[in-house]
């Protein structure tokens, strides 16, 4: 019956265990703190999707700003009767496109969708987005490490983000 020998060693063991735990927890935290910087390319870009404005979202997603380009083609209706379903497509004649993102400027969170385009996939995507009200839709195309954009205003008669 070792446990009944005396209280002292047991307490000492507990203290040592406690210290060990603290050390382990401390080590465990370290990689977590470092991951966002490294894994930004394949992890879900939580911060960018939480950003309120389009400028903040682009900065969070790419860390740089975009220049307008006529090689980015944004197809969106002039007037969307139903803001809950707005068909939007983006394509580009630029070479080496690596990603396409679509933002709706005045939505509660501007970034709507971000697509990764690996080599061999055509720089063209179509989807359907929700729009809260009449505002600009912004298409961002990342090509050869640079950002290019196209903007179009879409008039919304019935918003798709409220009750």
């Amino acid at each position, binding site marked *: 019956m070792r446990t009944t020998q005396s209280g002292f060693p047991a307490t000492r063991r507990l203290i040592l265990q406690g210290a060990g735990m603290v050390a382990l927890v401390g080590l465990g935290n370290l990689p977590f703190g470092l991951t966002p910087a490294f894994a930004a390319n394949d992890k*879900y*870009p939580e911060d960018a*999707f939480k950003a309120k404005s389009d400028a903040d979202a682009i900065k969070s997603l790419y860390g740089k700003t975009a220049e307008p380009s006529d090689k980015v083609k944004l197809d969106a209706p002039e007037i969307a009767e139903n803001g*809950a*379903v*707005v068909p939007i*497509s983006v394509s580009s004649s630029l070479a080496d496109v690596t990603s396409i993102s679509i933002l*709706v400027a005045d*939505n*509660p*969170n501007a*970034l*709507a*969708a*971000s*697509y*990764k*385009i*690996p080599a*061999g*996939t*055509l720089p*063209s*995507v*179509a*989807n*359907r*987005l*929700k*729009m809260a009200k009449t505002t600009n839709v912004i298409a961002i195309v990342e090509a050869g490490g640079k950002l290019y954009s196209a903007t179009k205003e879409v008039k919304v008669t019935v918003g*798709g*983000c*409220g*009750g």
Partner: protein
Amino acid sequence: MASTIRVRATSSGDTTEVQALIQHPMDSGYVKDAKGELIPPHFIQELTFEYDGKAVFTADWGPAVSKDPYVKFAFKGGKKGDDLKISWVDNKGQSDTTTAKIQ
């Protein structure tokens, strides 16, 4: 349960065009229900298309993507009869995967 993912992948020439339609509420977290209570956010965050063991298209989505999302893209390669694997994960950790034959 039947799959939530419906896919049509069509090969023509040297490219394959893919259209996908997924059944998902895509709740934004801003909409109220009939009792006036906010419906909590519930939306697909990541959608991946794999062909021949490689990702050919990855979507990161926010809650601004419409309910029952639709997406269309095309990639070079892909032969009739080959498999295309599609999977999604939402913000509640739910997921679904399906495999479609390229036509």
